[in-house]
């Protein structure tokens, strides 16, 4: 167990240590784990070589902005599916779950054409649009909403708390763990996404960190400058790794659920 964990941790430790090394350290033929001299210049250089300010803002706006929109779409749909009777409900729910069976990669070409037709190429909106409807989120919250007892709803109705009021004041606060789980999975996914943003973006105006990093690595400046590249990588993944360190248990239990349904 211990050797396995060391083996899995080693690459990230190596990444971190490399980011603090000087060039001479990196290009020695016998690799040393610890830097002979700890330097911070890689980080300052990386920060100047990549438009990190813009990349950070874009990534934040895409992942958290999308989450805010999903919060609305998912809550409303889950509310209807969990607590209302209406003709066609089960059929419509199946149609929604169908999304889990369709790989986003197989719809990249038509979605690119749609985004292009809407004049949204190279915008943050374009990156988020295909994910506004979330079958996984709706499913997760529907499960949570269903566990709220009928009596509570009736009691709330007596106090005039019905409809959207009931959703906002009762269902949402009572389902906080499910929201957190969905939020973690969604933010991680969109913080890390690479392929779709790569296709629909062209400039740092809309690019997220992952694409900025990938494009930098393929330039002459970024290629083989390992200390610089590792520092840039560390800057790009810093927040998500910190979030993981703080919420390890929650992350693991959230991703457990992500597998059971898509």
């Amino acid at each position, binding site marked *: *167990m211990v050797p*396995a*964990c060391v083996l*899995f*941790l*080693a*690459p990230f430790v190596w990444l971190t240590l*490399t980011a603090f090394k000087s060039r001479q350290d*990196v290009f020695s*033929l016998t*690799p040393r784990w610890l830097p002979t001299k700890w330097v911070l210049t890689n980080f300052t250089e990386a920060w100047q070589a990549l438009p990190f300010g813009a990349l950070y803002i874009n990534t934040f706006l895409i992942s958290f902005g999308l989450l805010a929109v999903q919060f609305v*779409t998912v809550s409303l*749909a889950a509310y*209807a599916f969990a607590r209302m009777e*209406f003709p066609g409900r089960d059929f419509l729910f199946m149609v*929604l779950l*169908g*999304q889990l*069976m*369709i*790989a986003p*990669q*197989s719809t*990249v*070409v*038509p*979605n*690119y*054409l749609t985004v292009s037709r809407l004049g949204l190429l190279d915008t943050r909106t374009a990156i988020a649009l*295909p994910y506004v*409807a979330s079958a996984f989120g*709706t499913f997760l919250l529907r499960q949570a909403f269903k566990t709220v007892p009928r009596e509570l*709803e009736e009691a709330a*109705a007596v106090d*005039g708390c*019905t409809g959207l009021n009931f959703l906002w004041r009762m269902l949402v606060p009572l389902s906080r763990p499910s929201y957190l789980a969905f939020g973690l999975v969604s933010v*991680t996914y969109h*913080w*890390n996404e*690479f392929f779709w943003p790569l*296709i629909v973006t062209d400039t740092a105006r809309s690019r997220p*960190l*992952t694409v900025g990093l*990938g494009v930098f690595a393929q330039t002459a400046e970024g290629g083989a400058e*390992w200390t610089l*590249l*590792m520092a840039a*990588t560390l800057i*790009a*993944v810093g927040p*998500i*790794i910190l979030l993981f360190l703080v919420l*390890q*248990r929650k*992350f*693991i239990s959230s*991703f457990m*659920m992500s*597998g*059971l349904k898509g």
Partner: protein
Amino acid sequence: MTQELADMQRAPSNRMPARSGPQARRRQGLPPRWFGALRPYLYILPTFVFLIAFTYVPIVRSVWMSLHESHVALARPVFVGLDNYRYAFSEPLFWKVLRNNLLYAVATIPTSVGLGLFFAVLVNRPIRAAGLYRSALFYPTVLPMAAASMLWLWMLTPGYGLVNHYLGRLGFPDIEWTGDPRYAMWALVIVGIWKYTGYYMVLLLAGLQALPSDLYEAAAIEGASPWQQFWKITFPLLSPTTFFVTVMAIINSFQSIDQVYLMTRGGPANATNMMVYYIYQVAFRFWDMGYASALSTVLFVVLLALTVLAFRVMHHRVHYA
């Protein structure tokens, strides 16, 4: 129904009959009755607009476009029937790409799911620092594949890379991991295993925790060794979950693109070109949208078939009578 409860509740205080006409409802500040019937549809409307616009219409459009020749040289798409598919099936590169996908799947999945199962069983016991072990194995899941690719490019660099250094100590020659067609796929396989083992472990852990504990108690009383317990209880009972995770892993492997783009660009000599990267090249390098749509449709059908299979298994999760 809740609306009516609220009606009845309010009606007496307003000295109105419980079932009042539209005017009375408006005076009470209640929405008209037709709204009640429409309400659920309004709630699911935002989700369905986007679901249809960005999931279902694209599928149909993809199939439709795959029946046309459509690229930059043509003013408008020309209907060509199944020509794009015929072209794909006669194109050696298409088969090479599929073979690469299969090779990647066969090399990555048994290892990552097998290790995932092994670790899941180990960390499921009440041992000290179990949480620490879980996190140490799981954290690559949280890292972007883009970062993982950078990291492993550096680990696998010939001459200075850590991997070659340790292999060299074992007597191996310096390997050009991403530059040599014989090894490039293995570079991607290593990254795939490192990145996904922890995720599969966590999914299998969920399955393990759902197993009835009384069976293990009984087995312990009967004096079954941990080895016997694993093969006679855990493995058979967990097999639907294991199968589900395996199918998910196959689907996952067919969607690989980030590491292909960042580590090898499908090369050298297409040795690591896989389905999604091939679609990317055809669509966004050669701008041949008709052929790219045909490839997307093939990918869609393959993945759909696999997913339906996975859901079937999850549905019939009753594993013992």
